[in-house]
């Protein structure tokens, strides 16, 4: 069909077939006032603001319902039209509160902009108050200040036409008409999906997002999908949850692989900041995103992501990456795709760093880690094992760029008498030995010093080796640094906990540890200036815990020295002389950092994101554009999500923990993953916050050329 040609206030414009006069005019930059119309919703013609006159026809007609046909002559401004609009607005204002200054939509309110545009600031009509305004206002996601409702019906259409949920409608009670659910049941009971499309289209402050539910320090588009906003790598979480729900596991993994090359490992070990952002928390509890990731990874047999994404031409530039942990390997993966010739120098004989050697087998199975490292090697990254790089400067001489991603591979010991005895180890050494199958002299009983997650990883590993484990830490009870579940897991497996205890010294001879001398503390802190421990001991509480060995889980260091050729701070971290702080840049041109060597011991996902940023930075340094974003799966957002009874109550699925007595006998994962039903159930709990990104913003009068 051909485009129609018509005139609006004497201006000739053209319209798409089937387009309304309102939309044709707006597309042509000519403003016609409107409130009930929205670019993504079917017209309803109930605000009566978009009225126009048509040459040759009596009366006025709503332009949102008037087809833009050839030869039509439309007038949008006349005193009769102004009068009609004024009355229409006054009808809305009669029931609308005057306390705009206490409304959070102030200055982002289409009604306020309309008042400004038409100059009709209040109603001559009697102030009306609805008794139905207080109905159904209480829910944790959508703030409903219904006294602000002008009954434009956008929310009703968004719920029905956009989402296929259809739980909102115009209700009648006595002589009042109001927007509500059938029977005025709460949104949850009505089967609401809490997608907040109704909030997105509301032109006033009647429907608002619960205050504080989104971060206000981020761009709006980013903030409204809080899981992705919280994820350091900004993975497209709603997209992959949808795919998991549909059983399309390989595509789900492809979505994750757009941002991280270790989805399966993360499915085991990620600290899941996404879940702390999840909007569903306000309803009952967050979606179990991490476990779903593990579930999908286990079922990714097709590897649909293979061979997809960008592969730039070879640049001929050589990049050395020091350290084959999550940061180094991620950077290497992208730098190779960007066309550079990448060599990873790994000190150990296996790659994977912390993932392979820093956590116990039962937390991240070797097979899983090595498979994902393998894909990176397959993609063309060269890994040289057993390479102890002693000087970044020397390496730089042979490469155009160097990335230092050595992590924090050196365990620290506290300065205790006896710390140099033969059976005293660090957690780093102990866990590495356990993963490599090396034997240490541990005896029958071992004391672990420290209260973080690493201490409990050590304890769990000791128990699986048949060694009795006692954990000693300063913090008491709730104050302990490790995650609750880690503590409970280790204790149920048989670890003995001495929390609120301070160490005095290690008993025995340099040849054989016999015990750890401790006492109870009632309170303690670390001196701000010196970092020294200041404690109040409980009198007469000194005792000796008998043991044959000691493992310190008391922090880690980079192990870097002056000889490495980079300017270091007093804690041994490379510094960027420009900022004076640790960062991606170092004192040597062309030598960069990524991962724990910048941040100190942190989480795998942080290291991965740091590796991505370093790759981008290095590419720009080498003359590239630094662009590493890629799409491995085309997105299909299905906006019609439909109503689901009891959606708000659907409980979070939890992994079942294997019985302590069983799991302590092997190095298999401590919990059993979801079954198929559970995975679908869990993935379908997602509120799909991202759907809202597809709803366009209604433009106000000041954004049009002709107004």
């Amino acid at each position, binding site marked *: 069909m051909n485009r129609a040609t018509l005139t609006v206030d004497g201006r000739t414009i053209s319209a798409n077939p089937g387009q309304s006069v309102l939309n044709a005019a707006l597309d042509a930059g000519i403003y016609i006032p409107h409130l009930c119309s929205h670019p993504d919703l079917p017209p309803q013609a109930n605000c009566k603001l978009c009225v126009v006159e048509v040459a040759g026809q009596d009366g006025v007609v709503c332009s949102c319902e008037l087809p833009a046909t050839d030869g039509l002559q439309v007038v949008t401004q006349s005193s009769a039209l102004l009068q009609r609009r004024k009355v229409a607005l006054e009808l809305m204002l009669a029931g609308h509160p005057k306390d705009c200054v206490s409304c959070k939509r102030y200055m982002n309110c289409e009604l306020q902009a309309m008042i400004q545009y038409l*100059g009709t600031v209040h109603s001559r009509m009697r102030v009306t108050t609805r008794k139905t305004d207080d109905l159904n206002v209480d829910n944790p996601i959508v703030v409903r200040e219904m006294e602000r409702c002008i009954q434009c019906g956008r929310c009703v259409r968004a719920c029905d036409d956009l989402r296929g949920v259809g739980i909102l409608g115009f209700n009648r009670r006595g002589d009042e008409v109001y927007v509500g659910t059938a029977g005025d049941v709460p949104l949850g009971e009505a089967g609401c999906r809490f997608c907040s499309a109704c909030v997105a289209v509301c032109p006033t402050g009647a429907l608002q997002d619960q205050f504080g539910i989104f971060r206000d320090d981020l761009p709006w*588009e980013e903030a409204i999908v809080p899981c992705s906003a919280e994820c350091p790598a900004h993975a497209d979480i709603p997209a992959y949850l949808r795919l998991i729900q549909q059983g399309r596991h390989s595509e789900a993994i492809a979505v994750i692989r757009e941002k991280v090359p270790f989805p399966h490992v993360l499915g085991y070990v990620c600290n899941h900041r996404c879940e702390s952002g999840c909007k569903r928390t306000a309803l009952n509890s967050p979606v179990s995103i991490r476990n779903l990731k593990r579930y999908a990874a286990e079922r990714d047999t097709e590897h649909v992501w293979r061979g997809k994404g960008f592969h730039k031409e070879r640049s001929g530039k050589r990049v050395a990456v020091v350290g084959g942990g999550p940061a180094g390997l991620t950077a290497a993966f992208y730098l190779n795709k960007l066309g550079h010739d990448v060599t990873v120098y790994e000190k150990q004989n296996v790659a994977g760093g912390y993932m392979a050697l820093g956590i116990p087998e039962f937390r991240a199975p070797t097979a899983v880690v090595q498979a994902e490292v393998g894909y990176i090697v397959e993609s063309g990254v060269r890994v040289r094992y057993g390479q102890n790089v002693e000087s970044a400067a020397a390496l730089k001489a042979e490469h155009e760029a160097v990335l230092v991603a050595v992590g924090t591979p050196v365990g620290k010991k506290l300065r205790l008498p006896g710390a140099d005895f033969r059976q005293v180890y660090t957690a780093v050494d102990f866990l590495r030995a356990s993963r490599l199958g090396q034997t240490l002299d541990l005896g029958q009983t071992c004391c672990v010093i420290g209260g973080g997650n690493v201490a409990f990883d050590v304890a769990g590993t000791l128990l699986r080796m048949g060694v009795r484990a006692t954990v000693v830490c300063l913090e008491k009870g709730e104050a302990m640094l490790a995650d609750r579940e880690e503590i409970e897991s280790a204790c149920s497996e048989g670890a003995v906990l001495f929390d609120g205890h301070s160490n005095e010294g290690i008993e025995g001879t340099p040849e054989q540890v016999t015990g750890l001398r401790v006492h109870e503390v009632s309170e303690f802190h670390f001196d701000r200036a010196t970092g020294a421990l200041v404690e109040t001991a409980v009198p007469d509480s000194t005792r000796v815990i008998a043991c044959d060995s000691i493992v310190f889980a008391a922090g880690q260091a980079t192990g870097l020295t002056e000889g490495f050729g980079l300017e270091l701070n007093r804690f041994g971290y490379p510094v960027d002389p420009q900022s004076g702080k640790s960062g991606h840049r170092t004192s040597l041109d062309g030598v960069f950092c990524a991962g724990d060597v910048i941040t100190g011991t942190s989480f795998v996902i942080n290291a991965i994101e740091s590796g991505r940023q370093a790759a981008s930075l290095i590419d720009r340094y080498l003359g590239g554009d630094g662009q590493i974003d890629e799409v491995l799966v085309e997105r299909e957002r299905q906006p019609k999500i439909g109503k689901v009874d009891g959606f708000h109550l659907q409980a979070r699925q939890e992994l079942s923990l294997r019985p302590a007595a069983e799991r302590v006998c092997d190095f298999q994962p401590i919990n059993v993953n979801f079954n198929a039903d559970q995975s679908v159930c869990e993935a379908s709990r997602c509120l799909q916050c991202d759907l809202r990104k597809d709803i366009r913003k209604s433009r106000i009068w000041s954004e049009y050329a002709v107004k």
Partner: protein
Amino acid sequence: MKKITTDLAIIAAGPAGLAAAITGAEKGLNVTVFEKSSVPGGTSNMGMGPFAVESRIQKEAMIGLTKEEAFKLMMDYTHWQVDARMVRDYFWKSADTIQWLEAMGVRFAGALKYYPEGHATWHVVQPADGSHPGPRCASTMMKLMYERALELGVTFYFDTPAVKLTRDGEDIVGLVAKGKDGEEYEVEAAATLIATGGFGDNPEMIKEHCNFTFGKDMFNFRVPGLVGDGLRMAWEAGAGKGNMEMEMIMSTGHVHMLAGYVYTIAMQQPRSLIVNKEGKRVMDESVLQNTAVTANVSVRQSDRCLYVVSTDSHFDLYRKQGVDWVNGVIKADYTADAETWMQKAMTQFPGEAVIADTPEEAARLMGIDVETFMKTVAEYNESCALHYDDLFCKDRRFLTPLEGKKFYILRLVPGAYGTLGGIKVDSHYQVLTPDTKKLYGLFAAGSDVCDLYAGTYLYYLPGNTMGFALNSGRLAAEQAAEFINSLETVA
């Protein structure tokens, strides 16, 4: 990162920012405005009109107040604690500003008083549709100002807050702004003007700088977005701190947020009795109409609050002969649904409002000392019988005894229109460092610098908040233009 070069960069498109933008463009400057919301007009979209003295409108209405009289009134009232030159320049400019606005097409309904004892300086905007002015009517003026600015070639970036000023030595050379989509704008400007409207929506700043706790002893208008952006950016760039205070008025603890809050006006009539928590009378109730000074009475009391008491016989009287004081902002039948709304307030905000069958019960429910309160009522009723208030000399016309079948008490607490001041400036809106050195290229106007009140809004001269915003915006932009010209001369 997008780069923009302009002569005058203006932060925010409220009344001060728009006035400055138009003035700058009239002086031939290339002007760019960065506004964080999607609409022009800022807080004035809610307001009604500006202050002026000796305007055409006043002269035609035979209003005889002169600039000199207004100036003396202001300086006496503030004990010369405020910048006299700033007051003078603002008052002397104000009549011209009205004409300047009229030339843009703004129509004024007239120059009004806020209450009978005041002066008619409040130039209330005539809504474009010809109806009676009311809240929000100044939004019409904001639209016309915005359109005038566009006509003069001013560029606007909406949904694009400025986030940081750029300083180079002793000069401010531009700013960084951030679009809604996250895109950054690096703006190079010969001069920059801040007009962000204060920090009314920032309870932490109100606590820190004015010692009020929002929701406890302060129930100010929290116009969303007024979080002190301008102050923060100026201070971070090295500006000094100016005097900061709340633009105080009397309010209620959330009760006024109930949709039909017009009924609270029926409570705040001179025939009511006002007591403190101890049950004692503390003021001549006919002072209540000056809401700024009533707030001063209130902050001296326990819990910084007052209790206003009325009876059903008061309400009957109002229904028969009308209330003694009508409200300049809201015109309505103030007693229409009073009973319903008071009931609603009682359940929704316990401790803020009460209805009871006896004065004892009402006082007890509100936590007022019952014994003293009953003594106060007896004394007050005796004064009414004698037609003479020996305590505070309340006008005998308003001495109606507190008797009836129903007793209403509403708690009054300090509120505020917004905040005043924060950025240190000289008399010409040039921003200064803490040690009073010029921060070249940086100017500020409107509520971010308004320091004309010395603690209490001068209600005798209404329209000052918007009046100062418009006039200081104009004056500051004139200074900025002069500064830019001096740069060009040097170059």
